């Protein structure tokens, strides 16, 4: 196991960083009204705008290239 890998592992094993991850806000798109919602892992999944409970992940920045065929 290389040095870098070990250091990555030891970092994520620390309980403090796990805690931070739980509180980290991630935004999703409401499947009904399209509003962006931010959740932590403890929040209930309800849209602030309309209460809908299905959400979509946001697309990665940078885009993707497709062939128009």
């Amino acid at each position, binding site marked *: 196991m290389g040095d870098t890998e070990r250091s990555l592992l030891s970092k994520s094993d620390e309980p403090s960083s796990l805690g931070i991850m739980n509180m980290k806000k991630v935004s999703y*798109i*409401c499947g009904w*009204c*399209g*509003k962006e919602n931010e959740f932590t892992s403890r929040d209930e999944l309800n849209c602030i705008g309309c209460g809908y409970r299905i959400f*979509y992940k946001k*697309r990665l920045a*940078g*885009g*993707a*290239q*497709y*062939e*128009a*065929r």
Partner: protein
Amino acid sequence: MDVNMAQLKSHTLENTQTIEHPSSGGKALSDIFDNLTLEIIEENPDDMIIDIKGIEAPLANALRRIMISEVPTMAIEDVDLYQNTSVIPDEVLAHRLGLIPIYAEPEKFKYKTQEDSHNGENSILFKLHVKCIRLQDKSIQNENVYSRDLIWSPLPGQEKMHIAPVHSDILIAKLGPGQEIEAELWCEKGIGATHTKWSPVCTASYRLMPSITLSQILKGENAKALKRKCQAKVFDIEDGKAIVANMRDCTSCRECLRDENFGVVLGKVKDHFIFSIESTGILKPRRILRDAILILKKKARDWIDIINVYKHTPKS
């Protein structure tokens, strides 16, 4: 019966072989070209009907196939998608975009090879950015994405060109509130053989000129019955006698053959081709025909070169 005429019988076609088969010891190809006539019957901005007389099916078919698959145009090839939250999947959206006819002069562009990057000589850039929103009064804006939403952004060297989608009202996608499509679209030059999106025609087809003769004079009730029988309104009555009025409109349905008492003789003129060229709107039909003829000519020249090389190669 004329050798030049294929005969339509109630269940068969007779005398269908072409006159100028090489084994028939006929004329040289140059004779055919000397006697060929081309006549424009109807010409509209998007379609045209022409009569070509004195050619053979192989030549007519070559022309048709070249029009469909070898006359170059510009079409969207690469789609850089930055955002697509619509219900339509990325690949399907890219495919739909590719099929939009783009009005641009193909002769001003070069083919892009794999090594080339996009530049003003081989590409056209369009930008598409539409976001659907619900307004304060609950109405919805930008529900539909149309081809008019493609915004052309000129690359260096393209300032004087006029480029846009041919039709402004092609529906690309439907959006719900909050959904968004953002993309950069790169058009490239290509031919229909690679992908149909580059084909300049909706379809190019030909049929043979029908030939209808009445073997006897029909009068009175008989003439009226014959006129009524034909749904294409080919027959008419003049001075109480049945005549063939609109030969060209015959669909060869053979309805008039069912009653043998009419004495109708149906046929097809084997060297008279009625071409129908329907353009997608990028090129004028007349231009498509011209390009196709030039491409056919170039192919013939290439063949002469190949034959000459073969001739001068010593046999081993």
